[in-house]
């Protein structure tokens, strides 16, 4: 061991103390989301999508998981959240307690997110992953709905397939598309005024062109503009 002066050792220990404080705060507030200490070589990347009904030729994965949470009706003012247990979750439901029509006598609620087979063919595209049934129930199993004017937010992780996607909802005996955004990390989300079955749907490519072809066209256009510009400069110089 090399000679370490006392001032250097004090400095090193002080840095370790600050780091220990930061780590303690991080572990206390983030819990398991913090993961193991440094992560190297651990399978922390997005795990492959788990299909309820893998298509022929698709890699076999572990079965998809369900999510379930028991909450008090007030939930201390925090949103109701339930998600499946993949890493990261394949489906998640979030709801403001005020948006749910909770009967006054109900002491607690169960929020469930469950993969189910599609109850009917999806008309507007190809299913991208699993259909998830999202429900909130009272202790006896009685379903609880969304208050008029309220909404819940549904998050579905995509399989990584290329193309435009939208979240469909199955209600009143048919699938219909919901306005969908992509908040990042492979998730798609949509607000819904009903609890129902939800599916991420890969829409048919309306242009018929692959991403590579469209990229090539865009670059070709820019090249053409640059070419015209060079010609213009040359002509103006004469």
């Amino acid at each position: 061991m090399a000679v370490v002066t006392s001032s250097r050792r004090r400095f090193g220990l002080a840095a370790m103390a600050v780091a220990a404080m930061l780590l303690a705060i991080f572990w206390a507030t983030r819990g398991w989301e913090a993961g193991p200490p440094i992560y190297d070589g651990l399978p922390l990347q997005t795990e492959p999508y788990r299909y309820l009904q893998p298509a022929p030729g698709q890699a076999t994965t572990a079965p998809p998981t369900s999510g379930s949470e028991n909450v008090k009706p007030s939930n201390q003012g925090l949103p109701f959240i339930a998600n499946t247990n993949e890493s990261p979750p394949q489906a998640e439901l979030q709801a403001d307690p005020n948006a749910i029509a909770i009967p006054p006598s109900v002491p607690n609620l169960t929020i469930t997110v469950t993969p189910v087979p599609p109850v009917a063919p999806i008309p507007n595209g190809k299913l991208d992953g699993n259909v998830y049934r999202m429900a909130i129930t009272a202790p006896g199993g009685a379903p609880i709905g969304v208050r008029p004017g309220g909404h819940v937010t549904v998050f579905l992780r995509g399989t990584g397939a290329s193309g435009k996607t939208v979240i469909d909802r199955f209600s009143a005996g048919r699938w219909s598309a919901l306005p969908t955004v992509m908040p990042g990390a492979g998730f798609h989300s949509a607000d819904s005024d009903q609890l129902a079955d939800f599916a991420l749907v890969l829409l048919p490519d309306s242009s018929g062109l692959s991403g590579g072809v469209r990229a090539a066209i865009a670059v070709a256009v820019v090249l053409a503009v640059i070419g015209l510009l060079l010609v213009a400069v040359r002509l103006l110089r004469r």
Partner: protein
Amino acid sequence: MLSPTLILAHAFGARYDLPVPLYLFVLGGAAVVFASFLLVVRREVAPADGPTTGDGGYVAPHRPLLGGLGLLLLAFLIYSGIHGSQEIAENILPTMFWLIVWIGVPISCGVLGDWTPWVNPFATLARLVDRDDLRQRLIGGPALSWPRWLGFWPATLIFFLVASGELIYNGWATRPIVTAVSLVVYALISALGGLLFGAEVWLERGEMFSVLWATWGRLGYWRFGRPGRRRFLGGVDQPR
């Protein structure tokens, strides 16, 4: 609209309810912008009839190995963006560009100084086409002079467009293929700038990343060959 509990990405479209009233949010934002102007209000600028260069990027000597590495990385990212998964989380390009290049690199320059001129692929491209024989063939003469009225406006405009992509149109701009094609287009623009005006002027005035990172680099510790003292903020009072 809520946000999923596990998402930590920056400006990738997650929406949040404001924790304060809107008017406070707007006033706070305006105050921050105003305060940022106070930082530069007393800064001397070059007189109108002064030299056209001297306040922009630093045209570092070309290092083919590092420049080649930068170009290879750019090519790999573009390839990933076009041919990889179009899920933002599963494609390396959005993370590399919108988090590392767009946010991480400026911050690193603000701490370390501008270490980027040798690896900036857009600068390398501009240098590669900065050849008199090529100019003679393509535009029939020497490099164009940089019009005074143009100032730093090309870099400013491009910065504005990229910032809009990050903050306003992020649902579209962060899609891997859109980011990839934008990088190709910008690479072509940078090459055109180097060809028309010469690499030195283009990198000082027009190439957005060179100007942006050099500006951040004024705050950083090392000067990497530029004038100024080796200390934090050592480049703030320097002409370039």
